[in-house]
């Protein structure tokens, strides 16, 4: 292959850090990275991908965690002819000590292309590009260092959660601990695909949903509270005295009209019953307003991307649940859902599609959750009722 990459070189210009620069840096040490650069340049020229469908590759005892990948020009790019990725389950919250990070780098220097993604969009560390032969030794080396593979295929995928109580004042439960606990509990489900399709779990500590769980998880856990949010009126006054337009920026934007600004008493009044815990007032006045103290989570199900029946946002399943170790209620619910899905789901049918097909009503019955108005925006308009 030629060393020239005129098209990619263009992408080293400009202020944003360049991925091309990263590949070139890796290419100095690793031939696979160098071939990747060539393949990428060729794709830019041809305006087409040069990767083929992956075959089944992996490590012993697992069915998931590796995405097989082959170049369609193996003669031209022999060092990237096999270019599998390994998905490494991340520590909850994506916190690292540098020792662990360096160990990953060292292992990948030995067995892979020297290129990574921190992170894949499910949340795994993606080790980008290695050969079939290197998979097992690389895996063995990683487990030595305390790392394990994440999910892929028709399995439970790597669970992720927001930074939560580690650094956020709004977390209504301990997202990191829940993510870690569920991950450890369901190792088998992560590593050995056996369901109709993939299943994703994500946890956000509050309705801001900083891991976009509601859009991307079959099982979505979002922190919330049952009592009233807490207002520190002195701190509110402080905001207002500093010119903060509380009326237009907070009161008028409250989606449920639960707030009122009393200009005389300089008080922000809340009708707690009307608050739908959207977080807006809290978000914009973090020094004055905080979530309540009777905290827990709302469980929603069914979030996913468009394949096959279209994209879905998660739907409310359990309006409120306490989230405390050992999380038995959540685990039980998950198991019931998996049983139902496993038994009734068709191949490549995600949970939302199954529920749509059989009807939410039937799904609720099967998993033993009672119907509640919180589950719907509005009741049915049609009269086509099964009695």
């Amino acid at each position, binding site marked *: 292959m030629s060393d020239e990459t005129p098209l990619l070189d263009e992408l080293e210009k400009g202020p944003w850090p360049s*991925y091309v620069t990263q590949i070139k840096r890796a290419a100095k040490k690793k031939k696979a990275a160098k071939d*990747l650069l060539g393949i990428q340049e060729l794709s830019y020229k041809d305006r087409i991908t040069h990767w083929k469908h992956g075959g089944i590759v992996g490590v012993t005892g*697992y069915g998931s965690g590796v995405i097989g990948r082959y170049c369609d020009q193996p003669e031209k790019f022999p060092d990237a002819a096999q270019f599998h990725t390994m998905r490494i389950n991340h*520590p909850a919250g994506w*916190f690292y000590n540098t020792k662990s*990070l360096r160990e990953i780098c060292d292992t990948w220097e030995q067995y892979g292309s020297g290129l990574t993604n921190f992170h894949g969009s499910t949340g795994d560390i993606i080790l980008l*590009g290695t050969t079939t032969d290197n998979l097992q030794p690389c895996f063995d080396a990683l487990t030595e260092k305390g790392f394990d593979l994440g999910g892929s295929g028709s399995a439970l995928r790597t669970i992720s959660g927001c*930074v939560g109580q580690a650094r956020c004042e709004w977390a209504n439960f301990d997202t990191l601990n829940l993510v870690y606990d569920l*991950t450890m509990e369901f190792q088998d489900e992560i590593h050995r695909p056996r369901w109709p399709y993939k299943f994703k779990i994500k946890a956000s500590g509050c309705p801001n949903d900083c891991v976009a769980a509601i859009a991307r998880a079959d099982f979505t856990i979002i922190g919330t509270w049952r009592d009233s949010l807490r207002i520190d009126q002195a701190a509110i006054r402080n905001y207002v005295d500093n010119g903060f337009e509380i009326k237009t920026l907070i009161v008028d934007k409250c989606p449920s009209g639960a707030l009122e600004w009393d200009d005389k008493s300089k008080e922000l009044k809340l009708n707690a019953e009307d608050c739908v815990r959207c977080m807006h007032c809290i978000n914009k006045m973090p020094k004055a307003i905080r979530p309540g103290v009777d905290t827990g989570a709302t469980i929603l199900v069914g979030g996913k*991307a468009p394949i096959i029946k279209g994209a879905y946002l998660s739907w409310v399943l359990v309006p409120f649940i306490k989230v405390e170790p050992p999380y038995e209620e959540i685990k039980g619910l998950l198991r019931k859902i998996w049983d139902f899905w496993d038994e009734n789901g068709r191949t490549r049918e995600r949970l939302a599609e199954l529920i749509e097909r059989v009807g939410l009503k039937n799904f609720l019955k099967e998993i033993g959750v009672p119907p509640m108005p919180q589950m719907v925006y509005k009741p049915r308009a049609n009269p086509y009722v099964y009695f």
Partner: protein
Amino acid sequence: MGRTDIGPPDYKDMLPPVIKKNYGKWKFHETIRPGVLRHVSESGDELYTVRAGSPRLLSIDFVRDICDVADKYCDGYLRFTSRYNIEFMTDKKANVDALIEELKRLGLPVGGTGNAISNIVHTQGWIHCHSAATDASGLVKAIMDELYDYFTSMKLPAYVRIAVACCINMCGAVHCSDLAIVGVHRKPPKVDHEKVLAQCEIPTIIQSCPTGAIRRHPDPNVKSVVVREDLCMYCANCFTVCPAMPLADPEGDGVAIYAGGKVSNARKPPMFSRMVVPYLPNNPPRWPEVVDIIKKIVEVYASNAKKYERMGEWIERIGWEKFFKLTGIPFTEQHIDDFTHAVETYRTTTQFKW
């Protein structure tokens, strides 16, 4: 054979001491400048976070570089965000400026907080995926170069979250982003009959098609399938289950742009992104048509939306017809939904703007 099912390392071993100590006790935070957060604990402890942009695709030597920075200023800890940014945390205010200097040296922008354009959630593209109709990393680089200022400042009305997916599988949260760029095919699969015979299961292929466009080959001697091209909407589902049906095509492929999605429950419930441009050609390395239109939308939004109004909230307030008017983007038949729940998008009122 090594150990199995050990799971990831315990997060507790990954937390810096000040976080361990104040875990669950944070009281409030403020953004002291773009890219720098200050969290204050009930205990009085402070935590400074410096957020740096990242290309996500990282060489191990670069990872080692950032480890050096973390060792020097952050007690040897760092984290990544759900949008691939790198966060350096320290309990020492004095470290902040030095940290920023160090990151500048590494070529990393500091920002992405508050009413900014943070890093773009994206996917593999031509770097690694067989399914890609466009490249993700190149689009991200080209767009972020242009929107760089919005990363390092907080001058927008609200968060603008961008996502890029290289095909309509939409890895990421593309379907719920303020701005989404999606790789699309526009040519039906080209069936390689011999390969179908060798590698694929015909019933699985037929089942995979959401529109029923795939049938058995009319000639019973050919153990393969044919595609009714008028029924194909290029979803590539068939290609996912059968490598013998590629759709990729330099002239057919390109990107579509969607807008107005969100994920947070703040103010309005989460919303799907919706089509604003059905197709733009793949024009690597810098996709100028895409970059232009993205920039245009951001600018029209920035100058029209009210404070704290996300893109989708703004559009919902002014109406989509006004969005198309303000941005000058033409409205085409492709914008009109014709998938399963299409009728729910049809306007059932005389309320609209001219």
